[in-house]
C-alpha cells in the first residue's frame, strides 16, 4: 500500500482544521492583536525547515559513511525542502515584522542566522546542479549539508544568547506563555506541516528514483 495519498490526505485535513482554529477560534493577542495569526504559518514553516535540515544532516552522514544512493536521494529532496521552508519562513516573518515592528528587515541575530541558513542551502543545491561528476557533487553537497545544519542550534538559541528584536520562545521547557486555544491551533498546524513535509518528500523521492532509472536506461549497453 502506497503511503503518499494517505499522508497527503492527512495533511489537507489537518491543515483545514488548523486554519479554522487559527483564523476563527483562537483569540487575538493582547499586544499584537490579529497579527498574531501569522504565527500559525510562520512557526510551522520554520519548524519544518529545521526538520528538513535535520534530515539532510542524518542522511548526509549516512551517505558519506555507507555510500548508498538511497541516502543521497533523501538528502537531495530534504535539501530542496529545507531551502523552500526557510524561504517561506523568512518571507512570512518579514511580513509579520513589517506589521508589528514597523520594518521588513532588521540586522537581528535570529533574522541574520536564518538568512545564512537559506544561503547555505541555496549553495547546497547549486553544488549539486553545477557538479560535472554526480557522485563528487553529492559528496561535496553532503559535507555542506552537515556543516550547514550546525547553524540550526545557533538560530534557535540566538534569541537567548543575543539581545534581539525577535521574541524569545513562547514555549520553553515547562513554561508556556500562550493561551490554550493558541497552543491548540499552533500544535495542529505544526503537525499538518510535518505531514506536508512528509508528502512533499515522498513525491520528491519518487521523482529522484525515476530520474535515476531513466539515467540508467539512457546509458549504452
Amino acid at each position, binding site marked *: 500500500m502506497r503511503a503518499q495519498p494517505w499522508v497527503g490526505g492527512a495533511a489537507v485535513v489537518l491543515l483545514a482544521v488548523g486554519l479554522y482554529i487559527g483564523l476563527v477560534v483562537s483569540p487575538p493577542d493582547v499586544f499584537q492583536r490579529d497579527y498574531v495569526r*501569522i504565527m500559525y504559518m510562520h512557526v510551522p514553516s520554520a519548524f519544518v525547515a529545521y526538520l528538513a535540515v535535520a534530515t539532510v544532516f542524518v542522511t548526509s552522514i549516512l551517505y558519506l559513511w555507507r555510500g548508498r544512493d538511497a541516502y543521497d536521494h533523501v538528502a537531495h529532496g530534504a535539501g530542496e525542502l529545507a531551502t523552500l521552508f526557510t524561504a517561506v519562513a523568512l*518571507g*512570512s516573518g518579514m511580513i509579520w515584522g513589517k*506589521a508589528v515592528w514597523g520594518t521588513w528587515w532588521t540586522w537581528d541575530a535570529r533574522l541574520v542566522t536564518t538568512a545564512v541558513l537559506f544561503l547555505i542551502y541555496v549553495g547546497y543545491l547549486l553544488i549539486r546542479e553545477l557538479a560535472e561528476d554526480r557522485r563528487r557533487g553529492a559528496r561535496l553537497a553532503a559535507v555542506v549539508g552537515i556543516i550547514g545544519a550546525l547553524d540550526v542550534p545557533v538560530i534557535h538559541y540566538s534569541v537567548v544568547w543575543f539581545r534581539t528584536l525577535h521574541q524569545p520562545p513562547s514555549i520553553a521547557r515547562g513554561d508556556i506563555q500562550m493561551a490554550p486555544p493558541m497552543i491548540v491551533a499552533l500544535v495542529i498546524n505544526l503537525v499538518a506541516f510535518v505531514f506536508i513535509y512528509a508528502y512533499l518528500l515522498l*513525491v520528491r523521492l519518487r521523482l529522484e528514483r*525515476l*530520474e535515476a532509472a531513466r539515467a540508467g536506461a539512457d546509458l549504452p549497453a
Partner: protein
Amino acid sequence: MSPAVAIAAAYAVVGGGILLYLRRIRRRLREVEADMQAMDRERPAPAEALTIR
C-alpha cells in the same frame, strides 16, 4: 498594513511557495514518466516473441 492584509500576504507566501514547489515537482514527474513510457515503446520485442510469430 491592516491585520487582514498582513495575514493574507503571509499565508499567501507560505501556501504559494508550497504549491509552486509541488507543481514543479509534479511537472518533472510527468516528464520522466512520459520518457520512461517512450523508452519502453522503443525497446525491441524479445527474441522469443519473434520466433513464435
